[in-house]
């Protein structure tokens, strides 16, 4: 207790150093803390699952002529086939996602509970509960799914639907899913550890699905897990299942030179398998770990720098203590203890810091991270971190302190005369800090440029002032109203420049099929996405028509518009050549009525590709509306109010929800955007930490050179001359850091940019500007201290006793 008291007194005496030290460490600890939470969460997926080595996810594999595609979904009848024919399989667990627009608990007629768009509802078999162990709060696992229309709820869902009923009393109660009544067969505890089994409500596989013989459709809502009896039967299982899938699909798929089979991934790997749904990119985690380690290293280096800078000041005390009988071991021990206390204070400070970060940047954290307790791993990690930091941060200062020569210290008159340890190690550390900082600065700069570039690059269509709407698809929200009713209602207003129905241009909304045409050598078949549009689409999005005419309603059954890439792939020489030529799609003959300029139809990570535009009379294919407003943003508010009025009369039960196209664009880049935000934040922290390190180094070196500065001033040097003298050495170090950092940053940026179809060209100025920025920041940091030293009265520094 006495020691702690003393340490606090010392910290209070050197408030600035203490503050820099603690804040630096606190930032480093907070970063590590959050990274650890994320990494721990992601890596603990499925790790607590019994028999996990025998459980596999089954997915579709398609061997095309020159490539292999993976798809996380299986044909519906596969589960039944496996269950009935493959004896190597212990449990067959299809997981079929179901969507119910409305779930209601009407038992309380006064205050019914209505929940819309509930996620994580699946149909499965009773095998599910044998494979995934749940604790049953109510109901009996053995008797589950013996009757039709039964549902098993997790405790969290049960509480949502029946807030006032004991979980044990829920069996037999009913819930209304859309129009169907389901009775509750059981309530299970939510899984305690992160798991790939995300579902919260379970129903029996519908007999339609179970008895289906549609082998040709692979849908992402139909996934499959199996638990094998014996690991040795792994390959025979894949062979047998693949054989069946191939047999059942070959006749149809061979037409497009494709072969279907199945693949499996062990449960332990499911979470990180990029071919599967809901998976996590393990590379991002490694990136995060890297950032965490770097920030921690920087903070520790900072501590070392700041503390060694303090050693000469403390040498006197240590010398005295040694004359009073302190042993070297005691010196080291008390120093380790002091570091430990400072780190512990930093840890306390990082508690609120972490909370603030988690609140501010909630979207960076995995969605479910807070629904699982990670208290113990986090506590253990923090303790380990505390010890590691204490150890690493203390070693060098302790080494220096033990080198203190008593007779020198006792006689020492000014601090400047004590030369302890070489300053070169600290210089190396500073260079290291600035290398990391500079890499981050360059990365931030280049990412910023690339994000801007992608937002501005020529997409082939214009989205300025376009607002987008998703028209209702639920019955009670009047989904049966013809979209054209809404279109014509909005169109008649003068604030609206144009309205178009159909799939948005840059989005994953599209259908897909082959477009084929006859040629000299036979048939040319090209698989391309198909977007359904209406007659105003090209006008609203300003997509350039190269030949032919725009879409008309009359084209519904006979016309098709293709883009330039598509007609080239189909073998036409020029757009004009293609007009009027017959093609086939969806087994139907159509005539090419128009050719448009290429535009980005999926994402900006992919290049412009072939696309076919069809029009449709079918409501479900035209459920999206794009409304072009006037270019002047000031008019938008009143325009939207007008549109809202129309919406309310046509869809009185549906919420009026819209989104500007450029917001949409941003979402498209959400992961890039998030990543660049993380990098921005890290850059701020690394720069801050590096400058703290720089301050410490400059402070100590000016203290050591006080006498020199005094003499120079007496001899007539100007203040500017002194500042230059003091700064020169450090600017040199920063210059070296920049030289080392730039090629590394160039390599890393190049790698990152490879994923973009439309990327900026790296150029020397992208490295020059960050370099200048860093030098300016560093100079300003040092400037204050140098100036203070330069302005000091030489009489004070030259006086001896």
């Amino acid at each position, binding site marked *: 207790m006495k020691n702690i008291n003393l340490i606090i007194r010392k910290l209070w005496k050197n408030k600035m150093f203490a503050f820099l030290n603690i804040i630096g460490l606190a930032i480093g600890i907070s970063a590590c803390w959050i990274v650890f939470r994320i990494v721990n969460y992601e890596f603990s997926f499925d790790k607590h699952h019994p028999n996990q080595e025998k459980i596999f996810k089954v997915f579709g594999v398609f061997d095309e002529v020159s490539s292999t595609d993976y798809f996380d979904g299986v044909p519906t009848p596969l589960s039944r086939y496996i269950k009935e024919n493959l004896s190597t399989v212990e449990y067959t667990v299809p997981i079929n996602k179901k969507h119910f627009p409305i779930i209601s608990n009407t038992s309380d007629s006064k205050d019914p509970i209505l929940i819309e768009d509930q996620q994580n509802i699946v149909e499965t078999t009773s095998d599910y509960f044998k494979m995934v162990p749940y604790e049953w709060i109510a109901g009996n696992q053995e008797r589950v799914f013996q009757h039709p229309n039964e549902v098993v709820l997790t405790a969290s869902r049960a509480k949502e639907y029946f807030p006032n009923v004991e979980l044990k009393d829920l069996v037999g109660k009913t819930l209304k899913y859309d129009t169907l009544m389901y009775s509750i067969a059981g309530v299970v505890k939510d899984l305690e550890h992160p798991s790939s089994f995300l579902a919260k409500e379970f129903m029996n596989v519908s007999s339609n699905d179970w008895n289906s013989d549609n082998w040709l459709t692979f849908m992402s809502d139909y996934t499959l897990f199996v638990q094998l009896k014996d690991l040795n039967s792994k390959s025979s299982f894949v062979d047998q299942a693949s054989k069946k899938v191939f047999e059942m699909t070959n006749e149809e798929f061979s037409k497009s030179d494709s072969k279907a089979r199945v693949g499996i991934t062990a449960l332990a790997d499911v979470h990180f398998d990029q071919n599967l749904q809901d998976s996590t990119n393990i590379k991002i985690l490694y990136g995060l770990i890297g950032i965490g380690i770097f920030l921690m290293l920087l903070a520790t280096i900072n501590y070392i720098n700041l503390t060694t800078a303090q050693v000469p000041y403390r040498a*006197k005390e240590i*010398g*005295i203590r040694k004359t009073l009988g302190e042993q070297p071991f005691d010196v080291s021990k008390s120093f380790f203890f002091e570091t430990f206390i400072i780190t512990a204070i930093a840890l306390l400070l990082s508690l609120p810091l972490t909370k603030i970060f988690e609140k501010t940047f909630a979207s960076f954290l995995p969605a479910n991270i807070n629904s699982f307790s990670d208290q113990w791993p986090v506590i253990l990690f923090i303790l380990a971190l505390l010890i590691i930091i204490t150890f690493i941060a203390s070693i060098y200062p302790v080494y220096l302190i033990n080198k203190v020569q008593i007779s020198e210290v006792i006689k020492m008159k000014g601090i400047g005369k004590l030369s302890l340890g070489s300053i070169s190690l600290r210089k190396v550390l500073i260079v290291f800090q600035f290398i990391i900082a500079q890499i981050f600065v360059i990365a931030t700069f280049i990412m910023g440029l690339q994000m801007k570039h992608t937002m501005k690059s020529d997409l082939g269509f214009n989205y300025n002032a376009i607002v987008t709407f998703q028209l209702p698809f639920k019955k009670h929200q009047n989904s049966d109203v013809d979209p054209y009713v809404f279109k014509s209602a909005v169109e008649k207003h003068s604030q609206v420049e144009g309205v178009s129905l159909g799939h948005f241009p840059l989005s994953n909304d599209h259908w897909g099929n082959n477009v084929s045409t006859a040629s000299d050598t036979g048939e040319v078949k090209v698989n391309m996405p198909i977007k359904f549009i209406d007659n105003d689409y090209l006008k609203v999005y300003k997509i350039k028509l190269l030949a032919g005419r725009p879409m008309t309603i009359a084209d519904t059954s006979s016309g098709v518009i293709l883009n330039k890439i598509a007609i080239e792939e189909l073998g036409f020489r020029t757009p004009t050549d293609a007009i009027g030529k017959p093609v086939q799609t969806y087994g139907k003959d159509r005539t090419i009525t128009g050719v448009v300029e290429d535009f980005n139809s999926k994402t900006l990570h992919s290049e412009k590709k072939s696309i076919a535009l069809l029009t449709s009379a079918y409501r479900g294919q035209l459920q999206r509306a794009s409304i072009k407003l006037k270019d002047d943003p000031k008019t938008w508010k009143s325009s939207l109010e007008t549109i809202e009025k129309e919406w309310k009369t046509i869809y009185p039960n549906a919420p009026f929800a819209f989104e500007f196209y450029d917001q949409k664009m941003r979402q498209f880049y959400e992961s890039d955007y998030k990543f660049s935000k993380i990098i921005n934040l890290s850059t701020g922290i690394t720069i801050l930490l590096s400058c703290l390190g720089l301050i410490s180094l400059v402070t100590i070196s000016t203290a050591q050179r006080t006498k020199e500065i005094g003499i120079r001033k007496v001899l007539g040097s100007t203040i500017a001359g002194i500042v230059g003298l003091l700064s020169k050495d450090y600017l040199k170090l920063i210059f070296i850091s920049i030289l080392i950092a730039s090629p590394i940053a160039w390599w890393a940026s190049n790698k990152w940019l490879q994923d973009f179809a439309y990327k900026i060209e790296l150029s020397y100025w992208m490295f020059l500007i960050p370099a200048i920025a860093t030098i300016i920041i560093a100079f300003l940091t040092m400037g204050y201290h140098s100036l203070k030293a330069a302005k000091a009265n030489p009489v004070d520094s030259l006086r001896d006793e």
Partner: protein
Amino acid sequence: MIKLEHIFKWYNVGGTKSFILKDINLEIKEGDFVSIMGPSGSGKSTLLNVIGMLDEPDEGNYFFMDEDVLNMKAKKRSQLFQSHIGYVFQSYHLIDELTVYENIETPLIYKNLSSSERKSIVSDLLDRFNIVGKKDLFPAQLSGGQQQVVGIARALAGSPKLLLADEPTGNLNSKQGEEIMELFKQLNEDGVTIIQVTHSEKNAEYGKSILNMLDGQIK
């Protein structure tokens, strides 16, 4: 108690040896009060440091209480000195972050005394030197003379047999200096061996014997 034989200490300056101590032979008995005098740079402080083992000679033999100090393991040596020697410095060298009480207590902590033992020793010393009222003050809040009194109290805390003082009155005015010297005299009469380095003839007179040094040699 102390026996120095042919003690040499030198620095290498540009290839030639520059001697600070040159063939020092010296014997000091228990209960002695020795004043070392001499001009600046004559090696007085270095000699004192060698006696207190704050500095090692380059050549020679040193026996402290009949033990060969220079051939002793560092740990044992430091234990030997810790229990028998107290130091008093010209610029007091109190630890700035510790109160008067804690400063005096520090050497006792290193001797692993229990906290109650420490408390009684420190209280005795505070009483003896009349500084009870100042025990919670920090060194910066005391005058130079008061600081030196604390310094002496601290040096005596471990009840040493030998007190080494390097210009103990150098930073004090003459009245304060006199008081300190009276204190030393009193201590010596109580049985503590004292070696002091001083510039002042007057202070040197308090000692039982005077050693004059010049250019690293005893004259």
